[in-house]
């Protein structure tokens, strides 16, 4: 486990390295660690994904489960999304106090929720089966199993993969006719019991997060745990970018500041980075190919971003 305190010499060393575009692990400022994504890791759920950054450094598991519920009166035509992000005690973060970990969970949940919900990525009305009676509730639970740096980005990648590969059984609403008590029948039935006929979730333009960290006068992405230690990063800006290049959310962490005149260029800096990461992610989970079917092992792929090109080493199974 890493100690949390960094001496001034170590911090100065790190800052000098960032200035010269060489970080502690040899990466450049714009380089991500190896990203490995595996889908369908929890077969009992409707969709799941596991993302690992680096060599077992940060590991996040996202699981989608869906359930039927009655929509509320004000939003009778909409389904709901319940999001929960939490850091598992397994992660043994250097934050020891229970209160700090709870604060971190709350921060991650609200930040990510605002990106997902406010960007309108999930079409709530499409989740409704019978207005006022039946609608899907999508539970998205994200668990951080290892937190050695850049947790929020990993959370967004795992959630993206899980939501894009999740599939719900097709459901038809039945109405019309009266039952024995002379009440109008409002029911639903499964369109098909074949798993391969499951429909994907109605998501489009789902965002992922790119976190820009200010170290000295430079900005780095994908900080490792030693870079995130106390005093390393002065300020942190998380930009949520969707597939069309729109910015779906901004979230700032850490106590420092960014120059006001540079705010816009900084946010825009994240857009091409997000594009590259998304391309690799989509290729890895098989979304650029034909429609994939649930139940087939998609395998995992190792993505690596170097000097502007993506290299994909695909390996099936683990």
């Amino acid at each position, binding site marked *: 486990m890493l100690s949390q305190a960094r001496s001034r010499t170590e911090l100065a060393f790190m800052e000098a390295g960032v200035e010269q575009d060489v970080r502690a692990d040899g990466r450049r400022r714009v380089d991500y660690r190896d990203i490995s994504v595996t889908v369908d890791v929890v077969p009992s759920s409707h969709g799941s994904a596991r993302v690992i950054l680096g060599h077992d450094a940060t590991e996040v598991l996202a699981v989608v489960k869906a359930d039927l519920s009655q929509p509320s009166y004000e939003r009778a035509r909409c389904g709901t999304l319940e999001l929960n992000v939490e850091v598992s005690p397994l992660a043994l973060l250097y934050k020891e106090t229970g209160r700090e970990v709870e604060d971190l969970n709350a921060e991650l949940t*609200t930040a990510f929720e605002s990106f997902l919900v406010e960007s309108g990525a999930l079409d709530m009305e499409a989740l409704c089966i019978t207005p006022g009676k039946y609608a899907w509730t999508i539970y998205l639970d994200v668990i951080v199993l290892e937190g050695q740096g850049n947790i929020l980005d990993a959370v967004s990648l795992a959630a993206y993969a899980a939501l894009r590969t999740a599939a719900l059984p097709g459901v038809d609403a039945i109405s019309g006719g009266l039952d024995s008590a002379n009440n109008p029948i409002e029911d639903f039935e499964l369109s098909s019991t074949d798993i391969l006929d499951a429909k994907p979730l109605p998501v489009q333009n789902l965002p992922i997060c790119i976190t820009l960290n200010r170290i000295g006068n430079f900005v780095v992405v994908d900080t490792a745990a030693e870079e995130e230690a106390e005093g390393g990063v002065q300020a942190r800006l998380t930009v949520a970018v969707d597939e069309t290049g729109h910015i779906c959310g901004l979230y*700032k962490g850490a106590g*420092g500041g960014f120059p006001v005149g540079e705010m816009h260029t900084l946010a825009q800096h994240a857009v091409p980075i997000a594009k590259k990461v998304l391309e690799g992610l989509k290729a890895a989970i098989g979304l650029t190919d034909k429609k994939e079917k649930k139940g087939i092992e998609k395998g995992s792929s190792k993505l690596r971003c170097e000097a502007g090109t993506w290299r994909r080493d695909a390996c099936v199974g683990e």
Partner: protein
Amino acid sequence: MYNCYTPRVATKTQVSTLQTNSEIQAQRKKDDTGPSPARSESFRMDGRAYNQLRPVFIDLNTVSHASGSAYLEMEHTKVLVAVYGPKARQDVEFSDEGKLICDFRYSPFALRARRPTGKEKGGREGGREGGGGGGGGPQRDEERAASRTVSQALEASVQLAKLPKSVVEVFVLVLQTDGGEVGAAISCASLALAEAGIELFGLVASCEVVAFTPSEGKREWRVRVDPTAAEEGGEEGGREGGKEGGVVGLALMPVSGEVTQVWQKGRLDTRGSERALEMAADGARMVHALMRKRLLTYMEQEGGGEGGWGGLGEMTRDDRAMRAQDEKHPESVDGDVK
């Protein structure tokens, strides 16, 4: 301390960004892809111009027992902040720098629908004990997140290096909310820290804007400063039924020109994002000017000259210089602090 239910009437702000940003506006007119601000952007439900803040009322030393306190009203958004500290830290043996902790709570009556306090049902396990604030029950997720937002916004403004082994606690209570309460909390907390005499680099002011496109396809972005909850929600009149849009909030410390906090909810493209960030920064400067003015007036009334405000250090000298400048030009109180 007067009764919060009958606050004094706030005066309308007369500050306009058109004067301070005349170059930007002139350039906008030349750039034909940008919308002209003089056009129909001015339609708002409460009759304000697109770049006009709601009437702001500030009162200081509201909680007389606290080290420092402030009360800020932006029409119907009312926030009360009390600062306790600097006091000795109990959790660590020694720390080089001070620590800033924030406790942000909504009072149960703050929103339109009364929120249950933690006492009715089982509540969450492991809730926080201690700390002041409204409900007194466990904090909700959004309150915890807002606590982080406020403390991160203020950290850069406090001279923590001068407070070893100390902690400064900021308690925020939202009495009523009509949009923009987190921004109001940041500004109010900054005033409370100043009133407490804690040494600061500068004041932090915050402002929100809502940006939207009135119709699909047209890339014309409309930005409105300091939206009410209805304008933020964007259902009927707020965003004129536009599909794309979002709320951007920004906390700025004009003394160093640094943005200490920023948040965005909703989708914006490049152009919208640029305009929104710019207008939010302008709005924050406007709020900063009001805060500074009020603080100086308060100093004159209560502080009684130099003796009462020794704790503010450099800020007093700077403000004396700024005040002399303001007396020469009383109309143009703008936020540009050099």
